[in-house]
């Protein structure tokens, strides 16, 4: 170690660099004696192990998803026999046909789109406006901050909230599906951090001198510069609305107003196939074989349901992810 200290940094860097270049091409045995190689070799082992770990992890993460997709286009008998492992077997769209024949699923799909689009639109607008206001100084800011933050740690609970909503005549309406939990304080904080760290303060100073007011500054300056955080908020709010089944379970009684996830619950998250089969394929032929077919068809239909319900969220994410990951990082770092 003492000898190393005497070396000039430049020399040392070169000494360290040479074996690394060699490492990819030839493994020179005489190089092994060098101490620097020991460092890089342990690094190479680390990299190799790391790569293997990630390949395994990726398999664990992606294989179940892949399996669902190939199962959804396979023949029910093949799935039942455990033949569908890596490729679709006896390609068929039977499951999708069965799902799309269900009026209730279609209707709930449209409901979900409506709740998600309108609900997230309102949420994003309200959140951005408040987030901007919280980046400025004004009288009573600490009180307002407290009002928001406190709700992150304490809330009334399910039952009092339910009774309050019922007293407000919001029970069993479309309105509640759109505006309940409209503002997420967590998202508000992310948006606030993002705006205060990316929109330069000089811009604000310039606007002050030019005699701009807050509305104009917000709409003409802050919004155009906040594309990334708008994308992040859209995905956050959109996905949480799209995926929510519990709100409808609590607040909606009228089946025509139910969103997709709540209907899916009846299809997917049940122990027995028979109830599902009854509600979904009540027109099986009456003979035993017909019933078995119907049950198996219902099994494939489950895979199809997963694909058609998860598809939009995943596609939205994949398209947005470029902006998205960067925006989340900037927003969450300080928050």
């Amino acid at each position: 170690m003492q000898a190393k200290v005497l070396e000039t940094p430049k020399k040392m860097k070169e000494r360290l660099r040479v074996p690394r270049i060699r490492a990819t091409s030839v493994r020179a045995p005489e190089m092994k004696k060098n101490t620097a190689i020991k460092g890089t070799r342990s690094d190479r082992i680390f990299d190799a192990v790391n790569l293997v770990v990630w390949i395994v992890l990726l398999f664990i993460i992606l294989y179940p998803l892949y399996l669902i997709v190939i199962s959804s286009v396979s023949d029910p008998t093949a799935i039942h026999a455990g033949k569908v492992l890596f490729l679709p077997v006896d390609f068929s769209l039977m499951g999708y046909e069965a799902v799309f024949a269900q009026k209730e699923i279609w209707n709930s799909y449209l409901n979900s789109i409506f709740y998600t689009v309108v609900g997230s639109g309102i949420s994003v607008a309200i959140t951005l406006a408040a987030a901007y206001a919280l980046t400025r100084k004004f009288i009573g800011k600490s009180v307002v901050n407290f009002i928001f933050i406190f709700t992150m740690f304490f809330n009334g609970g399910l039952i009092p909230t339910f009774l309050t909503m019922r007293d407000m005549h919001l029970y069993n309406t479309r309105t509640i599906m759109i505006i309940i939990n409209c503002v997420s304080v967590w998202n508000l904080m992310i948006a606030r951090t993002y705006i205060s760290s990316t929109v330069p303060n000089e811009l604000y100073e310039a606007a002050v001198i030019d005699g701009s007011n807050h509305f104009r500054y917000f709409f003409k300056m802050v919004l155009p510069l906040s594309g990334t955080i708008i994308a992040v908020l859209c995905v956050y709010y959109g996905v949480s609305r799209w995926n929510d089944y519990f709100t409808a379970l609590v607040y909606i009684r009228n089946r025509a107003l139910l969103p997709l996830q709540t209907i899916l619950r009846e299809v997917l998250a049940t122990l027995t196939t028979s109830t599902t089969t009854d509600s979904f394929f009540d027109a099986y032929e009456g003979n035993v074989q017909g019933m078995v077919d119907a049950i198996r068809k219902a099994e494939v239909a489950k895979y199809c349901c997963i694909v058609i319900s998860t598809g939009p969220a995943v596609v939205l994410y994949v398209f947005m992810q470029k902006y998205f990951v960067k925006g989340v990082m900037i927003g969450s770092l300080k928050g």
Partner: protein
Amino acid sequence: MTDTSRYSSRSLRRVGLRLHNDWQLYVLLIPALVMIIIFSYVPMYGVQIVFRDYKAAFGITGSKWVGLKNFTDFLQGPYFARRLSNTFLLNLYGLAIGFPIPVVMAILLNQMNKPRFKKLTQTAIYVPHFISTVVMAGILYLFFSPTNGIVNYLIETLGGKSIYFMIEPGWFRTLFIGSDIWQHAGWNTILYIAVLTGIDPELYEAATIDGATKSRRIWHIDIPHLIPVATMMLILSCGSLLGSNTDKALLMQTSGNLPTSDIIGVYVYTQGLVKGTQFSFTAAIGLFMNVISFVMVISVNWISRKLGETSLF
């Protein structure tokens, strides 16, 4: 812009750096405040029903006062200990196993030296997060089904005996926590990756020159940088140790796995809303859990500050 350069920002601040109409800020805040008040604070006012015997005919403020009866009923109920420990253990195991995994994943991902593979991995590990709870539970029912689930198919192929996962009490926590980690561990790396990418590269260069291997660099550079953020996340998680994963547990609960899946959140939902009669009683349970969670966050935060580590507030 030429105007700005004439004034230094300090002199502007002295004059009082304000747009001349701060009332507009309040206008921008009002929608969010109204929403928060309606959906968070008005229900808090409704919490008073825990001290009353709520009857729909008399409303929240008109029902009869009964003092602490609802709480004593709950604490003396036959399954109180089981529900409390189920709730606590489910969250504790979930936190103990689920918390370190994203930290390790973030460190490993950050060390990845193949940029394209790294990018692909980063995109892929976030995907399961976008699956809904209903679909997640559905996947569990499908894959772990005793008749045609792939897991039991593999077990049988390897000579084992098929297991009825969804009704065995012993499997409930494993499936619940395992699927949670599968879904969210990748997503939860975002924060840690953000911290790691923010580390000054000169630190790594200096360490490399001093002969530090990758594992050394992780130990002496990455981990110290991650500790403050990880502590903060841990404090936040402590609030949810008695929190309810009602939506997922409700989906995964079957009559078979009740001994471990009977948790407080689901009990509140089924007793309060499905049966629709015991509003005061279930609201009292909800409040009880909320207060404990609140106290836990505050005390963990206090301890963390005393130890000289990070604190939330």
